[in-house]
């Protein structure tokens, strides 16, 4: 054990050695929400959950016994159906999200919500059918109308996906959002189920990562299995970890990432020609970018298939002796975050869509949606205090948008 580790343990032992007990926890709770608990005359602490707007956090999640179709629209007094979407720079207006927490062991929720990207308002609530709950395994087509959501039995095994549903939005119609079960057998998913579904831009094909070992493509209309590829092991580290990213706009290629489960393994972004013969996922796809995971913590491929976008973060290093790299108090290096653009043809860096100035608070960027040409990205900036800022990234510009109603990775555009 090194000296640094010994010193760190000794110091933490010293301060925690003073903690011999926690004060008693009085239950039941005192008067309802809004009355913060005070101790020793301290002012109430404002609980800040960066991924939930206060309205959504306080909304009662009511399990309503409905089977199909009926949805609850916006609160009384407002129009039953919102006006037709008016995209801004092609950015989708609607998103579907699952209001749950990454800290819940079982992340299933009794409803999905439809939100407005630009106003932050909740437009509709879609209850799961009786006895079922939605999982944050979702995908969206490019039409700003069609979304696929996975569901699990309410009392079933953790993370077992048993049904797939399509949520269809029809602005101006009597029922703004409708729910229909898909004629596609839902597979067992790995714990990475959030990135296990990808819907083609025209909404006709659904790619599914099944049990971390197969990629299957189904027809959305008939449920027919169109093609299957198997995830093969390339070495002693076992099966690589695969995450589905997106389809290209022409519906012919599927982008996914793969990484071997070993230290310092690079991240490979690949494109698969869906209509070519073959059943080996790696042999039948092409690597378009190989990068370190820290250089591409969050990735997307543009609709035209020409650009890989990477959310990255790195310490700011000034040239010169290490003692000169002291922009933060105490000597910690400031971090900068950026959205980088790489060509899928050459795998070379072609530019920076957006860069955050180096600071002691910067943590990183995460990408949620990108336009066909990769020049517009929905995503969020995170800081070292757990803060999240959601917004639209365009070349050299970040436009903040209202906070999402759900945890950002539990929403689909």
């Amino acid at each position, binding site marked *: 054990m090194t000296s640094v580790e010994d010193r760190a343990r000794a*110091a933490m032992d010293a301060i925690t050695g003073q903690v011999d007990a926690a004060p008693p926890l009085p239950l*039941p709770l005192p008067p309802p929400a809004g009355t913060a608990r005070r101790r020793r005359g301290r002012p109430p602490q404002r609980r800040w959950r960066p991924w939930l707007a206060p309205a959504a956090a306080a909304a009662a999640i009511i399990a309503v016994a409905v089977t199909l179709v009926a949805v609850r629209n916006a609160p009384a007094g407002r129009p039953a159906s919102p006006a037709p979407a008016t995209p801004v720079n092609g950015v989708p207006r609607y998103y579907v999200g699952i209001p749950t927490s990454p800290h*819940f062991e079982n992340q299933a929720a009794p409803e999905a919500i439809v939100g407005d990207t630009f106003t932050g308002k909740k437009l509709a609530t879609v209850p799961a059918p009786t006895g079922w709950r939605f999982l944050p395994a979702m995908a969206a087509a490019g039409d700003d109308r069609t979304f696929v959501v996975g569901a699990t039995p309410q009392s079933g095994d953790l993370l077992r996906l048993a049904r797939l549903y399509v949520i269809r939005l029809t602005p101006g119609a009597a029922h703004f959002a409708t729910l229909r079960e898909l004629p596609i057998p839902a597979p067992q998913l790995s714990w990475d189920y959030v990135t296990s579904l990808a819907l083609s831009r025209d909404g006709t094909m659904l790619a599914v990562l099944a049990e971390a070992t197969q990629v299957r493509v189904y027809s959305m209309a008939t449920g027919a299995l169109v093609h299957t590829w198997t995830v093969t092991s390339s070495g002693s580290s076992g099966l690589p970890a695969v995450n589905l990213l997106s389809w290209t706009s022409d519906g012919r290629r599927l982008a996914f990432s793969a990484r071997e489960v070993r230290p310092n393994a690079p991240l490979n972004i690949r494109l698969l020609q869906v209509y070519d013969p073959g059943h080996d996922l790696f042999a039948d796809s092409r690597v378009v970018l190989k990068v370190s995971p820290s250089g591409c*913590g969050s990735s997307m491929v543009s609709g035209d298939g020409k650009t890989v976008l990477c959310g990255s973060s790195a310490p700011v290093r000034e040239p010169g002796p290490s003692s000169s790299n002291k922009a933060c108090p105490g*000597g910690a290096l400031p971090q900068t975050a950026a959205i980088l653009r790489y060509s899928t043809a050459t795998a070379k860096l072609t530019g920076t869509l957006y860069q955050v100035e180096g600071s002691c608070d910067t943590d990183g960027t995460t990408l949620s949606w990108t336009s066909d040409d990769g020049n517009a990205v929905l995503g969020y900036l995170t800081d070292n205090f757990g803060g999240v800022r959601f917004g639209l990234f365009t070349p050299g510009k970040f436009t903040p948008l209202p906070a999402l109603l759900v945890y950002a990775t539990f929403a689909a555009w």
Partner: protein
Amino acid sequence: MDIDTRGRPPGAAEADAGVTGLYQAHATGLVKLAVIMLGDRAAAEDVVQDAFFGLYRNWGRLCDPGKALAYVRGSVLNGCRAALRQRARHRRRERAAAVHGPDAESAESTVLLGEEHRAVLAAVRRLPGRQREALVLRFYLGVPEEETARAMGVSRGTVKSSTSRALRALGRMLEEES
């Protein structure tokens, strides 16, 4: 602890028992976690109590109560992040008016620690948030990697890389100060 169940909704007794048992078993350890993060025992106890109150309110949504510890550990981390963010905003506002050290440790914590330990803990608290959390949870408290990832809301790979980066950064800071 006697619990008054009159006029209580169904399931409240189960929540009481579950949360109380978990608190008795783990609250002290979680206060220790928060004390390292915040350097202030009073604030640490507040954060932990708030986390358990949140657990109590959401007890019915935890389909597997056996995983409640993971939930409350994540809540404690979130509470520490919020407290640190509030503290940073306060420091920025008062930067011209007062002089504060980078860490608003409570007087009692400071008095009871030697110079060496104060310096090391100050360096720990200057680490970027994710590195600090990984260092405390994974390295010091020995929380399993997957549980640490769940509590921090990151991948297991991030836990590994953050832990090693934290130790390297800590070593660099301590070396430069010596």
